[in-house]
């Protein structure tokens, strides 16, 4: 798969950090605003897809499949580990909520502007699922884009 013109590549390179920042924002504020791990991970994966479409085979140094599979493993295992954290009560029990740890402060009842340092295990799980989804969808995109071997690129370049 070949890259696209210089205009497209420049715009993609410019937009890439903003797409990543927006996806990270959606993941990070999953316990306050609409969105969460799945949605933010999909946004970041669409940023990876944009880079793959714009740069073609040259994006392989940015988007590497081995790194993505390591990230996906880490996300899945972190999600399971956070679920097992509360197994003293039940599986998926929210142990950190209202405990005073990081993300553990309690929230007042009723409407309030929303505070980032709340939610207990929810922000951690959002990050775990977000990493898992961005790596999973990203590795699907990379696998589908680069399914043909190296020699194909040399012929058409």
């Amino acid at each position, binding site marked *: 798969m070949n890259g696209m013109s210089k205009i497209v590549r420049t715009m993609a390179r410019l937009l890439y950090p903003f797409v990543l920042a927006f996806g990270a924002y959606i993941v990070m504020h*999953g316990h*306050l605003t609409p969105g*969460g791990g799945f949605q933010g991970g999909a946004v970041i994966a669409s940023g990876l897809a944009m880079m793959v479409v714009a740069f073609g085979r040259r994006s392989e140094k940015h988007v590497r499949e081995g790194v993505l599979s390591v990230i*996906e493993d880490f996300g*899945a295992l972190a999600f399971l580990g956070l*679920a097992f954290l509360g197994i003293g009560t039940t599986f998926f029990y929210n142990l950190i909520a209202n405990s005073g740890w990081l993300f553990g402060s*309690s929230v007042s009842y009723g409407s309030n502007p929303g505070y980032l340092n709340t939610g207990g295990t929810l922000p951690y799980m959002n990050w775990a*699922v977000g990493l898992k989804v961005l790596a999973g969808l990203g590795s699907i995109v990379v696998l589908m884009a680069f399914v043909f071997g190296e020699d194909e690129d040399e012929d058409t370049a």
Partner: protein
Amino acid sequence: MKKGLGFFSLVILIASMIGGFMQVHDFGKPLRTEMDDYFIANSQVEVAANNAVTAVVFDYRGFDTLGEATVLFAAVIGVATVLRRMKG
């Protein structure tokens, strides 16, 4: 025979749809609200999350999210099995 069976199942489908839609409750007035009321009343107290949907997805029904993540993992495994780069 085949046509008659298809027509028969279509009649059954339409009849049960009409019968079901006859007894739909009014819009915005669900019959059972115990679960919704519990989530709305307690998600801020128990989970300390303003977003009740995330509280349901990651806390009250976290097991369902685990299943979703497993489905995504299986999809990635399937794509990687079919489309992995051929050596040589």
